[in-house]
């Protein structure tokens, strides 16, 4: 495109041009492609030494399971991870964008990024898009000020809490948290509670299913355990349905030669293969 020498500086904000086009399509009866959602259960929990994040692994397209084992815990930085619920593309791209922005910020400051920075970046971006980016996130990490856990909503509001759940299975998971949460839990207790909360979502919510992924973040290291619990293994076949050789009795064997005549012979030259 040699003709555009002076490109226009892009105007900030969301461009709503395509919304007009989409409305026109709807009027004409052309249906929009359905979003690939992660009807989900995602949870986060602050325990004694850090943060435990948990997620299920089912991705749905309306009522069909699109991915039986997708990864919903996304990397933001070495000490910060983020679970995502809502439209799969939105959560994936948003977390990747914030991850790269945070990496640039880290190189600029020379310090380990803080969770509140990631939180600010996420909410500022999501608010700018006025909720059209359908990403509901559970952001957790440990930085120099300690362990932090945030829940970020698609419209851009955030909550800073000791335990959070998001997604379609959030009520089931929250019920388990409300029953079992105590401040300053031990690591194994916290992992078990997170696993129980995700299991409640998996078994009681149709939008969540398959396995439980867990990510434990502490000051020194991150334990990304995928899968933590394979709660829904496909049933193993107990026997073979194959018939044993000799089940069908052979009564008679006859060997016949099939007569065929040569109709045409062609000789073709094939060029040598050169690199």
């Amino acid at each position: 495109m040699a003709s555009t020498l002076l490109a226009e500086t892009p105007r900030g904000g969301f461009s709503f041009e395509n919304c007009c086009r989409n409305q026109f399509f709807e009027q004409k009866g052309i249906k929009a492609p359905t979003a690939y959602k992660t009807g989900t259960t995602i949870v986060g929990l602050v325990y004694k030494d850090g943060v435990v994040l948990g997620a299920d692994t089912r991705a749905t397209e309306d009522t069909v399971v699109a991915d039986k084992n997708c990864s919903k815990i996304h990397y933001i930085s070495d000490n910060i991870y983020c679970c995502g619920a809502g439209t799969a593309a939105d959560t994936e791209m948003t977390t990747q964008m914030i991850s790269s922005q945070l990496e640039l910020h880290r190189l600029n400051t020379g310090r380990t990024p803080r969770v509140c920075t990631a939180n600010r970046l996420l909410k500022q971006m999501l608010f700018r898009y006025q909720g059209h980016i359908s990403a509901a996130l559970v952001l957790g990490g440990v930085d120099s000020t300690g362990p932090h856990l945030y829940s970020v909503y698609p419209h851009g509001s955030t909550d800073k809490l000791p335990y959070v759940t998001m997604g379609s299975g959030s009520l089931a998971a929250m019920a388990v948290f409300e029953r079992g949460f105590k401040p300053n839990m031990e690591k194994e207790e916290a992992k078990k509670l997170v696993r129980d909360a995700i299991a409640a979502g998996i078994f009681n919510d149709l939008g969540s299913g398959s396995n439980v992924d867990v990510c434990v973040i502490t000051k020194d290291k991150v334990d990304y355990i995928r899968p933590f619990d394979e709660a829904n293994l496909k049933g193993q076949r107990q026997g073979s349905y194959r018939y044993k050789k000799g089940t069908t009795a052979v009564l008679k064997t006859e060997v016949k030669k099939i007569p065929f005549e040569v109709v045409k012979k062609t000789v073709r030259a094939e060029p040598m293969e050169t690199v």
Partner: protein
Amino acid sequence: SYGALARYRNLSRVMKVNDSAAIGISGDYADYQFMKSVIEQRVIDEECLNDGFQYTPKSLFSWMTRVLYNRRSNFNPLWNTFIVGGVQDGEPFLGYIDKIGVAYNDPTIASGYGAYIAAPLLRDAFEANPKMSLAEAEKKIDECMKVLYYRDARSLNKYEVAIVTKDGTMIKSPIVSETNWEVAHMIKGYE
């Protein structure tokens, strides 16, 4: 509640039918009052017959399903969800009936918000211990009602329980859960 206004804080949503059955109601209170008077009258009529038979939980469940489904089919529903519970032939029974006539029975039943919040807890508890004692069951119910008070914006910390055993029906009311708000100390600000 009246929308978001906690208008009546003392309404009973649980009713004893006879010594082997009780029902719990959610939805429109006026429709419940209508159903209550119909059931009470039927129980009285039955007592007058004096034939030694009583409404069993399953027969009550079956009759109520038919009534609700019939009303729905005539576009005049009773806007309620009923939970019928009782003991029949030594076996406990729990059934759920909707305003559209959806009816099923299960060892654990929950309606409204309870279906999202309490049902997972009850299912876990039942799977872990299908033969729990009355005390354990009451404790589980209290736990569920407590979590519902925490998470349902239109709820109050007061509830009633109907207990049906082979010895009869008893209604305990009002019960207040002990709530724990210690976690509030850990929350400051929103970012």
